[in-house]
């Protein structure tokens, strides 16, 4: 692949309003420059690495993310406070524990019916499922062949985007049941989540202080 295409790829990702896939970019390049141009998905990957390395060296505030089977520009987390202050997108509420729990079951066992979800969780999950459908994190992907042909639920691309995953196989591996008994590493995990929540609430405080100042 010629070097110029690094910039072409950068331009394509930059101008795209949503996740753009390697195939879309290859198609665009071939339509413009002819079928004989050699561009592969692997080369695009290399180009992304090259570009990201450049951004890092120059200390730029954004990177190209591999997300939902494609690429997307995003600001780095160092600037989250400032960007979040302006953008209403980030002030949205987090998912509830029940919602994340249900999502994880769907993510690993998809396509899955509601009765199976409920039997794992041990609670009625109507409301949670509807919320997830509304947020477009899960979708109805068909009907099971079993009695009553219940609806099957699967996760969406939006789900990948929301959790910063490139593909479903990037999901954290659930531990095997034997391992679950040793809880040590999860204490660390919990602590990390707590830290993030703490930061969030601090930000919120700053915001409310400001609002109070204005009034």
């Amino acid at each position, binding site marked *: 692949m010629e070097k110029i295409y690094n910039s072409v790829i950068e331009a394509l990702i*930059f101008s*795209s*309003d*949503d996740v753009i896939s390697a195939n879309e970019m290859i198609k665009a390049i071939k339509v413009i420059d002819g079928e004989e141009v050699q561009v592969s998905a692997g080369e695009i990957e290399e180009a992304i690495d090259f570009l990201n390395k450049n951004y890092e060296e120059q200390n730029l505030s*954004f990177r190209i*993310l591999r997300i939902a089977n494609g690429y*997307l*520009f*995003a*600001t*780095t*987390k160092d600037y*989250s406070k400032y*960007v*979040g202050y302006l*953008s209403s*997108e*980030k002030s949205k509420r*987090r*998912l509830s*524990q*029940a919602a*994340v*729990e249900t*999502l*994880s*079951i769907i*993510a*690993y066992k998809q396509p899955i019916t509601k009765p199976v979800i409920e*039997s*794992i*969780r*041990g*609670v*009625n999950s109507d409301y949670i499922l509807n919320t997830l459908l509304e947020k477009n994190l899960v*979708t*109805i*992907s*068909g009907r099971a062949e079993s009695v009553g042909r219940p609806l099957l639920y699967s996760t969406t*691309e939006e789900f990948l*985007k*929301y*959790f*910063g*995953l490139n593909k479903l196989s990037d*999901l*954290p591996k*659930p*531990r095997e*049941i034997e391992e*679950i*008994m040793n*809880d040590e590493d*999860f204490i660390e*995990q919990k602590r*990390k*989540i707590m830290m*993030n*929540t703490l930061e*969030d609430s601090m930000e919120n405080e700053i915001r409310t202080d400001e609002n109070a100042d204005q009034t």
Partner: protein
Amino acid sequence: MYKIKLEHFEGPLDLLLFFIKRDELNIYDIPISKITKEFLEYVNLIKMLDLEVAGDFILMASTLMHIKVRMLLPREVDEKGEEIDPRAELVKALLEYKRYKEVSDDLAYMESNQRKLSFRGNFSADEKVAVPEYDTLLKNVTVYDLAKAFKHVLEGVKEEPVHQIQRLNITIDEQIEYIINLIETHDEVHFLTLVENMKEKIRIIVTFIALLELVKIGRIKLKESKRFNDFLLLKGDN
């Protein structure tokens, strides 16, 4: 004083896991009678708060009691001749649930990380107007989306109700005349017979006003009727 801190549990399995963790119990050897007792205490507490949620907990409570009973009985034996632990199924469900609960902690961590990033494309003004191509015509559209949209449209098209309003020309004077004529010929008229054949509400109302008018000027008198909810119209004194 005995104080209870009510934590939020996602469901009965969550609560059981909490007990197991708090008391450092061996999940493969759960002291059923102890845990059943604690579980019931909690259930009694939430029963007062939220019956809807309590249902799932009560189901688990009865499962626990069922297991407790089976523990007391001689053990059932499977086809290989091995004893079946009555708790086995519960343990399996607990472990399965714990597995996803753990992953959901992972996901929550990823969520909080991801929230720190802002994607480009965070705008809605300049929407991409793409010429639809054949292979993208059904991009991300499933048959359920179509069905949903179709249903939505069908339900959306409701005919606007059209009401026709007829103008009725009824005057109090006309009705006064009508009542007087009736009284002249019959001496006594029941109010209900007076309005019997009137189809329009407005006609009845106008007739009633006419009737009041006639009472006021003394042309007719009103008298209680033996019929329920009715009264009699009589000729007045002047």
